[in-house]
């Protein structure tokens, strides 16, 4: 077992309050690669896990600006450069007429970046995750709450981490293989 690569240690808790407390205690103890798996969103859990704010917003801004740029360039190119086209007395490039397309493309690309960026950051989709090997993980969609400390954590030490998680009230604490 010690030869194979480990994913980390996973512990089970039985309430939202318990997982919140456990997350707080674990991150306070200096663990950084900590994650929680719950049947429903638990308010403030991301703070207890000390997770930094997501960068997705910035990617979305870039997506939006790209959309604006593409829309403007496309309309300018089509209507007033490549094939100059006068519609109902408006100039070939008339800014008010370009706004609806610009708005739509901005929204479209922002939404694409938000959805696919979220997939990318979370490395989704994937068929399998090491945490599925935990013996009671199926209850994560029902009535149990799980806390994982990953092996990539600099403070990680299989035996000590197991002991720590048991110490803060975790049950079914298991060391999982990574494959």
């Amino acid at each position, binding site marked *: 077992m010690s030869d194979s690569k480990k994913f980390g240690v996973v512990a089970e808790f039985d309430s939202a309050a318990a997982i919140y407390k456990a997350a707080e205690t674990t991150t306070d103890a200096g663990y950084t690669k900590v994650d929680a798996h719950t049947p429903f969103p638990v*308010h*403030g859990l991301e703070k207890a896990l000390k997770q930094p704010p997501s960068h997705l917003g910035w990617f979305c801004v870039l997506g939006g600006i790209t959309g604006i740029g593409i829309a403007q360039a496309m309309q300018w190119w089509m209507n007033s450069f490549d094939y100059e086209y006068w519609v109902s*007395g408006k100039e070939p490039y008339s800014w*008010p007429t370009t*706004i*609806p397309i610009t708005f739509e493309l901005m929204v479209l690309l922002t939404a694409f970046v938000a959805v696919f960026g979220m997939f990318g950051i979370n490395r989704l989709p994937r068929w399998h995750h090491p945490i599925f090997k935990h013996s009671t993980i199926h209850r994560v969609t029902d009535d149990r709450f799980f806390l994982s400390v990953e092996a990539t954590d600099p403070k990680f030490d299989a035996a000590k981490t197991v002991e720590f998680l048991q110490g803060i009230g975790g049950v079914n604490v298991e060391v999982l293989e990574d494959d």
Partner: protein
Amino acid sequence: MTASTAPTLEQVAPNIKTRVADGDLGGAQTVMLGIGAIALIASLIGWGEQFIHSYLVAYMFTLSLVLGAMFFVMVQHITRAGWSVVVRRIAENMMGVMPVMAVLFLPILFEAETLFSHWWHAGDHADPTDPMHDPIVHHKIGYLNPTFFYIRVALYFAIWLGLARYFRNASIAQDQSGDPEVSLRLARRAAPGLALFALSLTFAAFDWMMSIDPHWFSTMFGVTYFAGSVMSFYATLALTCLWLRKKGYLGEVINREHYHDIGKLLFAFMVFWTYVNFSQYMLIFYANLPEETLWYQARAEGGWATIGTVLIIGHFLVPFAFLMSRHIKRNTLTLSIASIFLLAMHWLDMQFLIMPNFTKGLGHPGLSTDWLDFTTMIGMLALFVGLMLRNIANSPLVPERDPRLGESLKFHNI
């Protein structure tokens, strides 16, 4: 099922101060009411055409804050909102200014003939051979005639006074009784209330601003006024809460989470204003029908085009970029800056909607400012603030026994 009474304030939050200490806001109140009275009375010196035009701008600006507050209160009830309970009483106190707004409407009523001169006497020129006959206005005299105008004014104020009084009094009565049934009843009454509100606001905007130029029409016009009103209300709400906090009230009750939500709604209605204004402009620009474009023509001449550009930049582009970040909305200083800036922009918007029709008619085409623009605006706004502070001082600062008060106190953004 008979509901038990809502918990008392001592059970929900024993440590919060919900009453203004005697005379604590008295100084500010006196100063504001004094400025209001002096500025408005001084403005009367200039009674005449310019006075009534400036007065209308100031009136529509101030009215928009009161109407915005009324909309907010009813929307919170109909959605059974939890987060907003701690700020709802301040909105209720703002809409409590409505009776004075009805009195302040009197000059407009007296000078309606001057303001709406383009259609006021249209009924007297029904004969097509009459040189004063206006065929376009003639088709509208079923709606645009003095009698119906007066009836509608009475109707609008009946609706507004009734709604403001009903929703404020019911909420204050609940402070004593703690009856949860009140919240359920207000949620039910808010539905017809909002329908009446939407219709009355839309037609009031048509009557008092759009009909200045009776040839022009836009079904979007009421919505543009509504969007600006609600935006300005949120700006005023944020500033009032922050001022009270500075005075030592509600500091721990209305916290960062609530300001964040007020900021989000401020941002949303600012964008909504842009959306409806652009929709209106875009269709008129594209169709290029003479009777529709003339309204924008008056706003493209003599300096008004500059004001239009300032509105695009200041009422949309700059605040859009500025208010986007959550840190800006959660910081009290940056939120105050955005609120004050957007209120100034709303005032400019009211000028832009009303004034170009007049300045052309007055023989000095184009942009002009008069001292009356400022005295009427300062006077009316100061009066509004003074009256709102009086209302705040006379009732608990939060709905003490609202069943959702506890939820609101613990409110947390994801």
